[in-house]
């Protein structure tokens, strides 16, 4: 595998087939995925349930093994424990030790990295501040946390090692609108720090707000890939953006366009949404009825 310095993640022909007890193919969860994520970009992995995005993340983290193909993070094979020093991971739910409190949780995860004791002592309260857990919450056991608090401590543990790449699985799930905004700000701040972020989300507006590039997976296959702006662009419509036109000027503009032979021009802001794109991709693959089968 050729590794280019700019690449944070490289996935080549990655395939994962789940087999049954007798070794027969049961589900092709990921099918020949090829993908490159560049350093410093925020990359969105989208797809309906069962599309293979969680499988892709699990393969990248070494939680499961590929049937064929390969994946690497910073040039090291996925699952290599040494490279995990530079990786942060927030699972879709906060799978943490429920009997530890917030501080103990961060101290425990911090001790799994090569973080000097003094540095860890400094970093734990700092991170708890960043994710917005107050002094009282830090001393409470995780089993007493609300879903939003659990997401915050989960995010803190993902950042404990000051990672170069952060994998966020549904990062805004369970967060209130303010928490969601904070999370998006944090992602943008990570990007500003030059970190690579790979996020999986169903909240498409969130992805639209923060992602540089996205890919949409369906039935284990990559359906589309590109910059968010390019993918959302409607190419057969020309949009002229002018600030401060009066109604008379708008009327004159419309008459001018009619004279040019433009039929019934619309002078508005023609945009589409990420959700439209998502649904279009899905509908194209479900024969146009728009129904998606869970687990498909």
């Amino acid at each position: 595998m050729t590794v280019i310095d700019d690449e944070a993640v490289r996935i080549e022909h990655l395939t994962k087939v789940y087999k049954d007890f007798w070794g027969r193919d049961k589900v092709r969860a990921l099918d020949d995925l090829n993908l490159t994520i560049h350093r410093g970009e925020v990359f969105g992995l989208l797809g309906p349930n069962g599309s293979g995005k969680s499988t892709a993340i699990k393969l990248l983290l070494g939680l499961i093994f590929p049937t064929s193909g390969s994946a690497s993070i910073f040039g090291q094979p996925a699952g290599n424990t040494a490279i995990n020093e530079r990786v942060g991971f927030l699972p879709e739910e906060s799978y943490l030790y429920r009997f530890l409190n917030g501080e103990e949780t961060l101290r425990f995860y911090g001790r799994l990295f090569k973080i000097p004791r003094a540095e860890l002592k400094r970093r734990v309260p700092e991170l708890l501040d960043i994710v917005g857990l107050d002094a009282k919450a830090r001393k409470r056991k995780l089993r007493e946390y609300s879903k939003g608090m659990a997401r915050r401590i989960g995010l803190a543990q993902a950042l404990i090692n000051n990672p170069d790449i952060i994998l966020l699985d549904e990062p805004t799930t369970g967060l209130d609108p303010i928490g969601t905004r904070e999370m998006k700000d944090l992602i943008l701040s990570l990007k500003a720090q030059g970190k690579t972020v790979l996020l999986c989300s169903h909240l498409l507006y969130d992805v639209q707000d923060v992602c540089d590039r996205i890919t949409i997976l369906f039935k284990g296959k990559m359906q589309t890939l590109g910059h968010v702006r390019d993918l959302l662009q409607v190419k057969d419509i020309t949009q002229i953006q002018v600030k401060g036109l009066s109604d008379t000027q708008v009327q004159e503009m419309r008459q001018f366009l009619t004279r040019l032979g433009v039929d019934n021009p619309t002078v508005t802001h023609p945009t589409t949404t990420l959700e439209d794109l998502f649904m279009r991709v899905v509908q194209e693959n479900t024969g146009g009825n728009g129904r998606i089968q869970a687990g498909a």
Partner: protein
Amino acid sequence: MLFPASFIAIALPPWIANYLVWWVCALIVVGGLLIFGWQDVPQMRWRRIWAISSVSFAESLRRRVLWVTPLAILGVIAVSMFQHAGDPQEAIRQTIKYCLFASGLLVTVTAIILACTNLPREIDNRVIYTIVTKPTTRLEIVIGKVLGFARVSGLIVLIMGAFSYAYLTWENWQLSAQVAQRLKIETDPTTRQTLLGYQTAGLLSTRSLDQPADFQTYEHTPAESGYQRIKGYFGYYVLVPFSLTPSDKSMLGSALNDPAHWQALVITTMRLKRNVPTKDDVQWNQSRKIPSEGGSSIGPPLPGQDQGKPVPQITLHVVDWDYNELVPPAEINGGKMAAAILENHTDPNAPYTIPSVLSVDAIQKLLAVDKFFIEIIPETSSVEYEVSPMPLVLDVIQQSGGQQLEHQIKPMPDPRRPGQVMPPRFISQISRYGFKIAGSTKPDDRAVAVYHFTDAQVPRNLEGPVGFRFRAGIERGGDYDAAKAWSVVSLEVVNTQTRQSCGPVEFHPETNQETFVAIPGKYVQGGDFTVYVRGMDDGQWLELTRASVQLISAEHSFVLNLTESLLILWLLSVLVVITAIFTSTFVSWPIAVVLTIVILLGHWGVNELGDALNPGVGRSIATDFGFSDSTQVKLVSGGVDALAKLLTWVSAVLPDLSQFPVMDDITRGVSTPPRQVLEALNVLACWGLSMMVISFVILKNKEVAP
């Protein structure tokens, strides 16, 4: 730990065969780490292991595991309060047993539940995601979890140990006061002797005991000439040791393969003193259909007819080194007693010949073992059998062209006396507590148990007295003086080098209770000496084992002994944790719990089956179930034999929990030798390390995302 090395060892050099367990374990550990862990081992960091172990430890404590310890403590107090041990030493030893049993039960059950459920639960609730996505190797996870639960076990052992020590000290103080009170009013000499012994040594006394190298029981004090006399049908037997050389086996093989021309016999040669039978002798002999010379074996003699002297007869058995039967009696001399040849025997001082024929099946069984004893049981009452240093040989007779060629197989050579054979061993009838010897007030009628101590660990200071611990079963009946409330037993020590004897020291033991006998230290000087034990009462039977007489070589601290027992218990709990983690890497937790118990108790369980797994069990079962068709018999017996073999093999590779003797010594007041801790450590190292590496390999290749 045993290992099925019997046939592998043939092809292996001794430096491998003797340490096969270690080699196999080392192979698993090194192979596993080299193939699967070559990246993980260099990345291993103590800090991460300790962090994982601390989380397991904290989780266990916060799941309130320690709340069970007060329950266990209350259980011990309740049970020991309600016990009814008559003897104060017995009472305190029972309490030690309860304390250690409760500690052991608590620590093993806790270890199994915690360790079996931990990993499957972390995979199910996906906490493992946040561990394996850190720079944590699977090896660190396995070691960390083992260490974490070992710390939990250690804490439980520590709490239970502290309680045990405190409670036993309190009970010791109470019982010692009771002993002092009883001594003020007790008049029975046996009880006084016992109580004084407790008062002097203390109820929590701990001693090092030295075992005799050899133990035999004789009908009379053994003659130095090496020729011993045994009365027929009196419960005393002779064992002649054999070890077949390849040429011996080849000859016996000929008798096996060509029974038409070869025959194998056991030829016993003995001088016999044929006394005139008493009325009792006649009755005994008639009841067992032993014929009389010139008379009848059935009914009393007719009027005017003399009851002839009974024909001297013997029964032969073939037993292994632990006295277990190797050849069924029916396969030796057709299942009948062997009779002395009386024809042409005119000189009464000349030895008699008593031949017995070995069946083909018997020969086959002899060829399958390396060493065995041929046991001689003198059967005819009124006859005295003189046992020479070589009372019997195996004769293989070849019929060739009308000629008869005889090949003789002698008993096992004596390594200490070149050119001579091993002398026979003398034993007696076995009863509940051991080999029985008859006591008597008449010196000539007293049987004797002889304990040879060789290179014994004697106390450093031999100026004063040295002690022997005596414990034996005592039966009374028949001629016993019912008015006598206590038994009299004598113990005599003869120093092998100086030939000096301390003379018989009489004491009054109680059945199956410890008694301590003191003799002057000079008689055990050098560590080589012989102890003679005799019953001094008529109608009294002593039941003895090799452990009935032991030399007290040192006194030790009880705390140290308790610590050693608890350390062994903790090592056992670590083994339990490792086994539980191993099983939980590939099955769900309920199955892991069952499998862990099976693995831990498998070796013991198969040992308990004992003879039921011996070769030939299949045929016995087929016969018992009434199969008559040869195909069915073959199928059933083959299946059962294969299963028995498989069970034996599997049990042999499972850990041997008898190597963790938590209670054996301490509940007898005996110091646990440091060797026991090392042996436990040895099993833990062999089995534990291998299992940890296998667990790592399984986990390394396991997809932890469900």
